């Protein structure tokens, strides 16, 4: 039982990590393309990252 939970947690972390990587990478691209919009991109990035984080934590905690 514990092992399955750990596998699930690993999957969640992989997914969340991939998602965070995408968010961060795209935000960097956006900032590089339009440095003057850095503030807005950062805010949007943090919001999306926080939503993703909430999802990941929710899944982790539900599985615990």
């Amino acid at each position, binding site marked *: 039982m514990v092992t399955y939970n750990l596998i699930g947690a690993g999957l969640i972390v992989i997914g969340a990590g991939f998602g965070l990587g995408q968010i961060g990478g795209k935000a960097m691209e956006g900032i590089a393309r339009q440095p003057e919009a850095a503030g807005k991109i950062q805010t949007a990035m943090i919001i999306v990252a926080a939503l993703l984080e909430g999802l990941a934590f929710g899944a982790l905690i*539900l599985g*615990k």
Partner: protein
Amino acid sequence: METLLNDFSPGLFAVQTVLLLLLIFLMVKFAWKPIISSLTEREEGIQGALDAAEKARREMANLQADNQKLLQEARLERETMIKEARELKTKMIAEAEAEAQVQANKMIIQAQAAIESEKKAAMAELKSQVAGLSLEIAEKVVRKELSNKDKQLELVESMLGEATLN
């Protein structure tokens, strides 16, 4: 999830609710309201000062532009005045020159006329004097010579001859 629910303490939740409500109430009443209102007031003050400065700057610029215009006009006026004066001067000089020329010509003509008339008068007098003189001489000669008839004739003859020759 089970551990999570197990760890949830309803008592702590209740205490926290009461304390948070109290904290929000106290902070809003005694801290945030005065802080935010003074911050807003200050910001409005700064905005007002900036606006006033901007207005003053614009007015200053207007004033400067006016000054510039005035200066330009004055300069233009001065230039026209100078130009007019210069024109007047040349005109006056030209007129004076012309008048002087006319005067001089007139004077020259008058002088020439005077010289001519003086010359004529002098010639006439000279002629009359020469005539008188010659008459006197002739009288003397005649008086002297009339004693001798032949000689008178001869003289008359020669004189006549001379006179015609003359």
